[in-house]
């Protein structure tokens, strides 16, 4: 049951991404003023690195977010 739910979620996500991807077009360098805004960066802010670190320690899930995925204890 849980697996079926996960598969459904993945399919919905894939369809959503597919829909978004089909709507994309080539944006020239001079048209990227908004995309080049620092707030639009597709990575976490540098100041968020400590939060990523404590999430890695306090939650069983980690990875796929540009954070650390190994090394160090974090046993406290």
């Amino acid at each position, binding site marked *: 049951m849980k697996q079926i739910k996960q598969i459904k979620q993945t399919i919905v*996500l894939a369809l959503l991404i597919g829909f978004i*991807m089909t709507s*994309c077009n080539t944006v020239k360098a001079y*048209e990227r003023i908004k995309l080049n805004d620092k707030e*639009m960066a597709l990575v976490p802010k540098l100041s968020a690195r400590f939060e990523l670190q404590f999430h890695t320690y306090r939650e*069983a*899930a*980690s990875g796929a977010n540009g954070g650390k995925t*190994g090394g160090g204890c974090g*046993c406290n």
Partner: protein
Amino acid sequence: MKNISVLLVLMTCSAILSAQEKKDSTVVEPTSYKKKVLDNIELNFLYSNYVQNGNHGAVTGGAGDEHLTDNTPAILISIPISADEILSIDFGVDLTTSASTDQINPFAVAPIGGDDDDDKSGNTSSKTSGMIATSASTGGGDDGATAHKRSHGAATYTKTSDNRTFTWGVDGAFSSEKGYRSKGFGALMRKSFNDENSEVNLNAKAYFDNIDLIYPGEFRVSEGLFPSIGFKLLDVNHRNSFSSEFSFSQVLNKRMQISLNADLIYQEGLLSTNYQRIYFKDKPIITYKNSELAHDIERLPGSRLKYPFSVRINYYVSDVVLLRTFYRHYSDDWGVSANTYDIQIPLKISPSFTMYPMFRHHSQLQARYFAPKSQHLSTELFYTSDYDLSTFNSSQYGMGFTIAPPLGIFNLDTSNDRKRFRFKSFDIRYNYYSRTDGLDANILSLNAQFSF
């Protein structure tokens, strides 16, 4: 540790000097113009203060004080060593105080004058006739006690191709704390195409950790307590982690871009924490000196495979409002599965000032080896009462502020040269985190960025 720190400092100084020399030489002998990947040296001062409270301390078997404070100053410096190359050095220290580390050996008597922090003699254990032959352990400080320090550093070198569409790099990292040392290596590759509307990132890392086997006091022969009789010692004292990260990012239109990320992480070795206690349902609990004597320590499988994937979509709604969104699904072969949602809404109050409220929700299903205190049976092979591996939901919300004027904060103009010293930006954020098992935390982080 000191040698590595000295090496990092020397590397930084050498790279800065080299960058300055190259800067001078380009003035004297200009050839063809090539835009630098990074114009100036960038310096980031980072700091974080983290305070946590809870009552499910894993050291005390899933019931006990989890109070913890952590102060983390760090420095990140990026140095353009040529038009194509960047060397980044990252160094920081975690200064932690923790209530639970006091409980690793509550039977120890602190010596007069405290304990030398560098003395590891009390923590080193070895096998002798199947018993623990160590732990002089006369000092609470031997166990890391209340105060705890972790040093960590990393160096990354990257080189970008002349047409700026391909970047490769290598990195090395270390961290060192009492009873735990880690070193890591990695390589990265980035390729943009489709007129830089698409980009692929590949990243591979390997961490090699060494662990001092510190056991709870009742399992140390020196304490003379009965749980140490017949106690099964751990026979592994390393933890290796290997990760491969793949991401694909795509510009969707003039206002929106997306990235898809997938990781594959494999860990092997000692994946349990050797001083976390376990109490069984089918055995009586005996109290000694106000402490409950554990039945065993946490035992977990020797390998773990994690496979998370995530999607990040950023949308420039208007010149005032932006949206930063993130979703991750995580699962592993221990039975943990989790979903994480994160949204930030940067509000551009002025061209120099942005505030960003943020919200994050995380829900996870527990590892198959988890059970609360006194719920495991002694016949089980693997067991943990660490609530980080339990089923819970967590919420985090907070606010951040960024000041980044085009000419820098205070417009610190020290010369007519365009490569002048600048206080480029200041970013501060606060978040409150709460977990449905009762743990909560406050975290304040800041980043001051300079260039010169």
